[in-house]
């Protein structure tokens, strides 16, 4: 009798403790961390906006914290291409090494005004009173809005950049500063949120002390940006693997100049005679970085071959410099195909446990371009089964079938799709494939059988 009562009491206290623990951890996770110092450097030199955020965080509660949450306004979150985080290890300034941290989108309850969140998982949970320094890089695309929206050939391109002088965060920020790096010294206007200082090519907002969570102060900077606004609307890369020793890549590009639209006439005379004054925001060259040992490179479009291109290769990389048939001004488009072949042994490997995998790089080879929609189709040889791909960031995967040379059952195609791709996405990914060795002989046997039947037919030829 007494034992059952004491067990009941023990059960109740346990339940009460669990409940209080849950409520504490759920309700006050945003009060757990305090940002001691935040420094944000926004690089506006190209049309891809790179933001480097250095956070020094402190755990002010007793429970250990295992994640730090980053907040983004919903308009900015739509244009977010990449969020990366790393933590410095080592106390000596010169011998710092960095460890990559996982960043995942997350949701918090009571998110004001549709704020989007990303959570950084710390390597070691932060105990009470401990501080940590994190470095975050996030990349925004299509965030520079051209204003005026239409310019003539001889005008310079001016764009709006809208952000907040105060870093949006679910935590209390003790001290923060934001630096904006502009491509030139010409800034038409910027919103002043004191203290603000503009000198040379740097605009400094801050330092601001003791701001509550979710404080936001919108600013607009109207600056000159003549860097090439090269955007590839659609890129289709076909990677055909042949076990006879070659990988053939065909890339279909739909390139557009996404800056201020060109209005009026295009005068070739003015363009060529005064290059520093006319067409300052246009571009006519594009650089593609290809792997070394590339062969049979071609660059053509619907009309035919485009001969204005140069290929320079060394033992580490090849560079293909292409020049479309016309320079690209705002709103102008160019559609072309680039194709090349690569040796199989650089990319296809067999692991000790017998599986074969393809080590290839995701992303667009063109430098400083944003790809709105990227599709990679890996065409595997006939007879490959169950392909899968391991990519460091989320992509959509599906399978298709393609009929090509000497095919009977068709080739499996692994299709990877991703939207909003920037050059920082150029990382190797691995495609795993199962493959049967009979594939080598089966093609020749098919050809041989056909020829044999021809001979058999010849038996019935009449002879004297």
């Amino acid at each position, binding site marked *: 009798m007494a034992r059952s009562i004491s067990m009941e009491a023990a059960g109740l206290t346990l339940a009460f403790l669990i409940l209080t623990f849950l409520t504490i951890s759920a309700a006050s996770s945003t009060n757990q961390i305090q940002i001691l110092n935040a420094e944000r450097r926004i690089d506006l030199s190209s049309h891809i906006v790179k933001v480097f955020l250095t956070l020094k965080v402190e755990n002010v509660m007793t429970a250990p914290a295992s994640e730090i949450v980053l907040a983004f306004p919903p308009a900015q979150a739509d244009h977010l291409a990449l969020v990366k985080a790393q933590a410095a290890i080592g106390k000596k300034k010169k011998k710092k090494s960095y460890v990559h941290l996982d960043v995942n989108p997350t949701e918090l309850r009571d998110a004001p005004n549709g704020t989007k969140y990303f959570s950084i998982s710390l390597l070691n949970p932060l105990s009470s009173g401990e501080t940590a320094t994190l470095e975050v890089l996030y990349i925004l695309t299509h965030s520079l809005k051209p204003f005026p929206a239409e310019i003539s050939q001889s005008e310079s391109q001016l764009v709006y950049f809208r952000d907040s002088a105060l870093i949006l965060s679910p935590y209390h920020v003790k001290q923060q500063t934001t630096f904006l790096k502009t491509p030139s010294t010409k800034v038409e206007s910027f919103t002043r949120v004191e203290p603000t200082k503009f000198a040379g090519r740097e605009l400094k907002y801050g330092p601001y002390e003791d701001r509550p969570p979710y404080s936001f102060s919108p600013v607009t900077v109207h600056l000159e940006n003549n860097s090439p606004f090269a955007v590839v609307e659609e890129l289709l890369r076909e990677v*055909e693997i*042949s*076990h*006879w*020793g*070659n990988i*053939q890549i065909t890339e279909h590009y739909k390139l557009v100049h996404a800056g201020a639209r060109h209005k009026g006439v295009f005068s070739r005379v003015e363009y060529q005679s005064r290059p520093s004054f006319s067409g300052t925001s246009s571009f006519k060259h594009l650089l593609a970085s290809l792997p070394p040992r590339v062969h*049979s490179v071609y660059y053509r479009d619907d009309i035919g071959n485009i001969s204005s291109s140069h290929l320079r290769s060394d033992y580490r990389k090849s560079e293909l410099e292409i020049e479309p048939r016309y320079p690209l001004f705002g709103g102008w488009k160019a559609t072309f195909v680039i194709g090349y*072949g690569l*040796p*199989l*042994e*650089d990319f*296809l*490997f*067999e*692991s*000790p446990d017998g599986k*074969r*995998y393809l080590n290839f790089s995701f992303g667009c080879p063109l430098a400083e371009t944003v790809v709105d929609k990227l599709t990679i189709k890996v065409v595997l040889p006939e007879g490959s089964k169950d392909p899968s791909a391991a990519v460091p960031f989320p992509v959509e995967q599906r399978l298709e079938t393609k009929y*090509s*040379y*000497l095919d009977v059952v068709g080739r499996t195609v692994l299709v990877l799709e991703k939207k909003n791709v920037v050059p920082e996405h150029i990382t190797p990914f691995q495609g795993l494939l199962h493959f049967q060795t009979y594939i*080598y002989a089966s*093609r*020749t*046997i098919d*050809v*041989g*059988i*056909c*020829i*044999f039947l021809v*001979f*058999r037919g*010849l*038996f019935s*030829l009449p*002879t*004297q």
Partner: protein
Amino acid sequence: MAAAITSPVPVAWYPTLAILMLAVGLIVTASFFIYEATSSRRNRSLAKELTTGALASFFLGFGTLFLLLASGVYV
């Protein structure tokens, strides 16, 4: 850690192999036709026809495969 996968036949051999195999195949084909032309209906041996035909098909089959590979159609 991982072994690179290459083709079972060295790629530099593709043109040479194509020409050799096609040449041998065409010679055997010629021998088949000569046999057909010179023998009369009663003396013809089915076994000899079949072996010559099979041998010619084998060499011509491989020869066309290597010809396709040598010309860049990596099948």
